[in-house]
């Protein structure tokens, strides 16, 4: 099991006072997988991820992340662990195997990008070369700049650099591309694909459905503190089986459209009717966004 499962969650519950943030969530993430968690604000995404990262305790449920209960690594107080520090099961070794990119940025105003990345590299037993990491996130030109001079997107890249500098086996990314321009987002996607190709397991939360679609092997939708569906992006909400919409322009200029389970046949029929090109032809299936909005709208 340990070879295949990176994250195993059963019946996870967490409430803040009377507010239930996570209400019995089950989740499995396989090793090497890119898993995207989608959900509206307040659905329990960040709480769930922070429990998995060892930042929060939970009220109930079973959680294993890389074969350790992350609660052991939770250190909001100065409590130590009883295990020897270098044992594989020791929270500190576990920390070295888990990379975290938080939602809020922890800024080091007075330091340069290179200084921060180099400093954090020193915490890890098998860190990547800091200069290479800076290059991978596209901050080489800013390496000697103080971090407070960075733009929002550049700060986010620094966050990512600090998350990957320790060569994690498992990387958590909480809304990583917020504030990125389209070009930066595509560069970031390439970086994630590289990391994934090298075997890193990746769990990301995002608001951008195209991001989930572009990156994720599987998508989980959280609503109301529960995982309402898990599927590959193309199968989410039976998207593949959904009827396609074919539309075209009639000779008198009207746009006509038809729902069809067999759009190819319909297009062939139209092509025959028009004797060649069909004017204004489009074939669409419901986008991930349509499906997603329908799913969370039901809650």
């Amino acid at each position, binding site marked *: 099991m*340990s*070879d*295949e499962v990176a994250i195993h969650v059963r019946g996870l519950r967490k409430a*803040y006072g009377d507010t239930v943030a996570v209400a019995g969530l089950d989740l499995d993430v*396989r*090793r*090497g*997988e890119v898993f995207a968690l989608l959900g509206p604000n307040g659905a329990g995404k960040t709480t769930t991820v*922070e429990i998995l*990262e*060892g*930042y*929060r305790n939970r009220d109930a449920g079973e959680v294993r992340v890389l*074969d350790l209960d992350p609660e052991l690594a939770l*250190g*909001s*107080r*100065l409590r130590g662990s009883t295990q020897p*520090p*270098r*044992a*594989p099961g020791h929270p*500190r*070794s576990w*920390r*070295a*195997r*888990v990379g*975290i990119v*938080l939602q*809020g*940025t*922890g*800024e*080091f*105003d*007075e*330091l340069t990008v290179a*200084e921060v990345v180099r*400093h*954090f590299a*020193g*915490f*890890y*037993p*098998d860190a990547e070369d800091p200069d290479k990491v800076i290059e991978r996130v596209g901050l080489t030109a800013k390496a000697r700049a103080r971090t407070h001079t960075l733009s929002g997107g550049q700060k986010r890249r620094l966050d990512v650099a*600090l998350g990957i500098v*320790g060569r994690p*086996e498992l990387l958590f990314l909480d809304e990583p591309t917020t504030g990125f321009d389209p070009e930066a987002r595509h560069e970031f996607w390439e970086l994630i694909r590289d990391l994934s190709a*090298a*075997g890193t397991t990746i769990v990301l939360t995002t608001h951008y459905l195209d991001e989930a679609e572009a990156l994720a092997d599987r998508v989980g939708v959280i609503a109301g503190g529960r995982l309402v569906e898990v599927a590959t992006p193309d199968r989410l909400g039976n998207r593949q089986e959904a009827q396609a919409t074919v539309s075209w322009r009639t000779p008198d200029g009207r746009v006509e459209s038809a729902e069809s389970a067999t759009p190819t046949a319909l297009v062939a029929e139209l092509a025959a009717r028009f004797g060649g090109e069909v004017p204004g032809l489009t074939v669409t299936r419901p986008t991930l966004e349509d499906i997603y909005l329908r799913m969370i709208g039901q809650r």
Partner: protein
Amino acid sequence: MSTTTRPAAPVAATAPARRLGPTRLALRQGRLEIRQFLRSRESVVFTLGFPLIMVLIFASIFDEEIAPGVSYTQYFITGMIATGLMTVSFQNLGIWIPIERDRGVLKRYLGTPMPKWVWFAGKVLMVLVIGVAMTALLLAVSVTLFDLNLPTDATSWLTFGWVCALGITACTLCGIAISSLARTARSGSAVVTPIALVLQFISGVFFVFTNLPSWMQQVAAIFPLKWMCQGLRAVFLPESFGADEPGGSFELTRVALVLGVWCVIGLVLCLTTFRWTTRRDG
């Protein structure tokens, strides 16, 4: 997926080889903290500049002697060194830790394999280095501009050393402890500054301690600053001045005792109340 090429725990097996030793980790953390401090203009101005400016002002205004052959500077420097040590440790940490906590810097450290004590070691090293530098600066300025007489015997220097060390330790621990009271980045200075200011006025920093009302003296005697000042007076003032102290002597044993108790109180508070994340962060 590359699950077959990935043994169960490869990192743990190779970890000890390249991991930095605890001393290295602590030293580089200290270096980082010092660098951050020196680059932050407000830190340098408030922490280093304040005691220096106070010495320049007060020693220039009160240039008479408080006893034959004993200048006011000789008295005032003790309060300024004690204040400086408290500023570097108690105020500096009490103000900056909430800011770092609020910004999520502490949370970020928490997510790394850094042993937690390393972060504290970094803060302590920063306080020590800045504290020593500032004390040396105050002494140098007072000697060159205001004819301060430095102690000439080894015993006085020894007293100077342990009073400063014990005082800065107590103030460091209390500064880390009080940082948990601030709920947001901004409230750190609102919590710490009034405490520091009041203590300075009632502990004999600006005024001769025994001239203060006795109830004020008694309140001050609860806190470390009064004892730091008193310990330093034993170093910089003639022995005969001990008779003017409230206890009839410089009471060095009691100085050590009270500062030691504050170290213990501070440490216990740190261990039980320190928070790495803000309240809204859970």
